[in-house]
């Protein structure tokens, strides 16, 4: 898995909303401090002692782990909650998050509670999603390299639903390397990547998308159904057409 999701998400990638940090002259010290890392929890209806009641805006969002994606447990506090009802707020916020097909929990999630190690949570989440074969759960990041590019990128294959989506996303990601490399403007990447039949035009094209499968072979993208592809693809490489032609031609010759 990629280096700890947990610490990155803990910071909360979205900045604290200005509205909550601007409350100033409240008598409660909590409100004065701006977006406070206040955690409210407990049984619905129970009162957290000493929690300021007038600063729900300062409420740090409870963790949004719902169902089998508990590795997101540490990603919380993105949105201060305007409602004192944790239940609804959790549900509302759940919609903001990237699609997590988990059943909505009636209770809100609290950071670091119950005290289960993040490592354990992540491992169980990953095995749960693999076991179900479901599309929810852990994202499926693969590295994407491109010949001549100084660095690689990573994409989450689960974010895309088809080869077209993926190729458009890759085109955007690597456009800075593609432009300026040749004066000839190529036909759209989309056509190139998914058009398997125009083998002869590969000679003209600069880039071809290939992937590495479980046997560490480099294969041309596009032969398999998308869903199967996402499960077996381990790495992606954008090869130059001249290199890739070798692959395709040899496959055709067999």
């Amino acid at each position, binding site marked *: 898995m990629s280096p700890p999701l947990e610490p990155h998400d803990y910071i909360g990638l979205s900045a604290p909303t200005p509205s909550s940090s601007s409350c100033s002259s409240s008598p409660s010290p909590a409100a004065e401090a701006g977006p406070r890392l206040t955690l409210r929890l407990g049984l619905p209806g129970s009162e957290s002692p000493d929690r300021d009641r007038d600063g729900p805006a300062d409420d740090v969002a409870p963790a949004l782990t719902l*169902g089998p994606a508990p590795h997101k447990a540490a990603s919380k506090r993105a949105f201060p909650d305007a409602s004192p009802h944790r239940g609804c707020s959790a549900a509302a916020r759940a919609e903001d998050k990237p699609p997590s097909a988990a059943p909505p929990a009636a209770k809100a999630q609290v950071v670091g509670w119950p005290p289960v190690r993040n490592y354990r949570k992540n*491992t169980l989440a990953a095995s749960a999603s693999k076991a179900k074969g479901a599309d929810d759960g852990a994202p499926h990041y693969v590295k994407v390299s491109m010949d001549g590019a100084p660095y690689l990128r990573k994409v989450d294959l689960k974010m895309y639903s088809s080869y077209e989506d993926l190729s458009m996303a890759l085109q955007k990601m690597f456009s800075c390397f593609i432009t300026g490399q040749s004066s000839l403007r190529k036909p759209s990447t989309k056509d190139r990547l998914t058009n398997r039949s125009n083998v002869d035009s590969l000679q003209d094209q600069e880039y071809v998308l290939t992937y590495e499968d479980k046997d560490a072979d480099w294969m041309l993208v596009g032969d398999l159904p998308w869903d199967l592809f996402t499960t077996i693809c381990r790495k992606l490489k954008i090869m130059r057409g001249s290199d890739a032609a070798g692959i395709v031609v040899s496959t055709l010759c067999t």
Partner: protein
Amino acid sequence: RKQKDNDTASLSTPSSPDALPAAAASPRAPPARASRRVASPGPATARAAPMGRGGARDGAAAAPPWHSLPDEVLEHAFSFLPAAADRGAAAAVCHGWLGAERRSRRRLAVANCYAAAPRDAVDRFPSVRAAEVKGKPHFADFGLVPPAWGAEAAPWVAAAADGWPLLEELSFKRMVVTDECLEMIASSFRNFQVLRLVSCEGFSTAGLAAITEGCRNLRELDLQENYIEDCSSHWLSYFPESFTSLETLNFSCLEGEVNFAVLERLVSRCRNLKTLKLNNAIPLDKVASLLRKAPQLVELGTGKFSAEYHSDLFAKLEAAFAGCKSLRRLSGAWDAVPDYLPAFYCVCEGLTSLNLSYATVRGPELIKFISRCKNLQQLWVMDLIEDHGLAVVAGSCSKLQELRVFPSDPFGAGQVLLTERGLVDVSASCPMLESVLYFCGQMTNEALITIAKNRPNFTCFRLCILEPRTPDYVTRESLDAGFSAIVESCKGLRRLSVSGLLTDLVFKSIGANGNCLEMLSIAFAGNSDLGLHYILSGCKTLKKLEIRDCPFGNKPLLANAAKLETMRSLWMSSCSLTLGACRQLAEKMPRLTVEIMNDPGRTCPVESLPDDSPVETLYVYRTIAGPRSDTPDYVQIV
């Protein structure tokens, strides 16, 4: 000098094995002064007199002979004191002993990497062969510590490379270990043998490759629950073909694939291999092959233990396990198809430790399997075992010493059939049970009182009721009575975690009865400052206190400031602390580091904030190194 030695004693009391005696800077006292102090009357002197020097023949004025023993003799004597606490106590006797002890110490455990500077530790204990360093506070495991907090291993590796060239073992827990660290380890210690990394991050398989390539005498490579970046660098292949000294290989936390042929050859030629813990990338049939190559294994982690049922694969596994006569410890991430469990039956009798805490298998097959493990001492399971499963455990595993039950669905709607009943049964029938970690959805005082009565021999009792502030589900009262019974009955309790609905009264009981308590974890409990005051003014041997979401404020903290120096660390998050109190604490106690953590989005310096600013997270620890210099923006040292 007496005063100084009292200070020394306070830091290196028997309950603080990690402490370095404070009197580091003072020069060695001339022997005469030492003798005046240690020449205490009493049987000790008489007993020691014949030791090698023939007694005090010269009369009353002569110093006791054992004060002037040569260092080598002292060092040899101290080599029989492996426990750090005993060595610390010996070092506190006098400067002579301090010197002899520190020069001969072989194992050093630094429980808080910021308690001392790495260079100082290396200078103080020049003969160390094995070092263990721990970094981030415990609650970092649960996501309460943001990234880049600190706890870098690099300064320790650098200091060790400089001052401990003969270092053989290194262990890091909850620290940031980089590939550069691993490279430095591989190239700095010619006899490096044991590397253990627990809950660390920051390194990749490239760093592992440096270790496997460079450490020719490696015996143990133990990677537990780390976040390792997979660079596909075939680290396993870097073990030379002539390398055969491996005894422990644990790469269960590694995400990526390893070259199986290389692994198989490695296992074949390392005839001393005792512990092998595989990751999830090794399929079942390969596990069987490995077992045939290494029937001498004592500990096996199977990695992913799941496959469709095939009778020939089953037969292969069964045969492989049948050959493993020495297998005692078993673990693995079993999405186990229950049909395969009988393949293990032949090893059940010999098992002393079973870790199924990543196994999502449930049902009668699981229970049948565990019930055959009659000699089990340590059992880690998921709550999928349910009450009736634990009842079977209670009946079958009479030698059980440690039980951990983890939640399979921590955020779910609580559909698991595990209640307090399971724990009551096990505590009633397992007379050697002394350590428990139990996650469940409900509890009653009656159950806890029964458990306390059954098992006064608990040394570690950690109960986590999943929903915060849950009362006794029968009486709707707080669980004060139950937990009080535990601390009153279990006189040897060293570690306690409480949960559920609790008032200040339980802390009164804990403070009064927790005389051996070293670590206490509190969450969502208490009503007022009094709760914290009871703890800090009681619990004589408390070392680590971690508190979250409790209504504890400034007063008990300041009133018990001196207590904090007798402890290793204090963590308080989401309580009712303000900056002013932290400032006062820092001023009053110069040998404590007072760290506060606030919202990373707000990085205005602490100096400009008023005293009544709330403090979200406080982390206080004693140190002889002064304030650390590697704090991220969101941590401020007061």
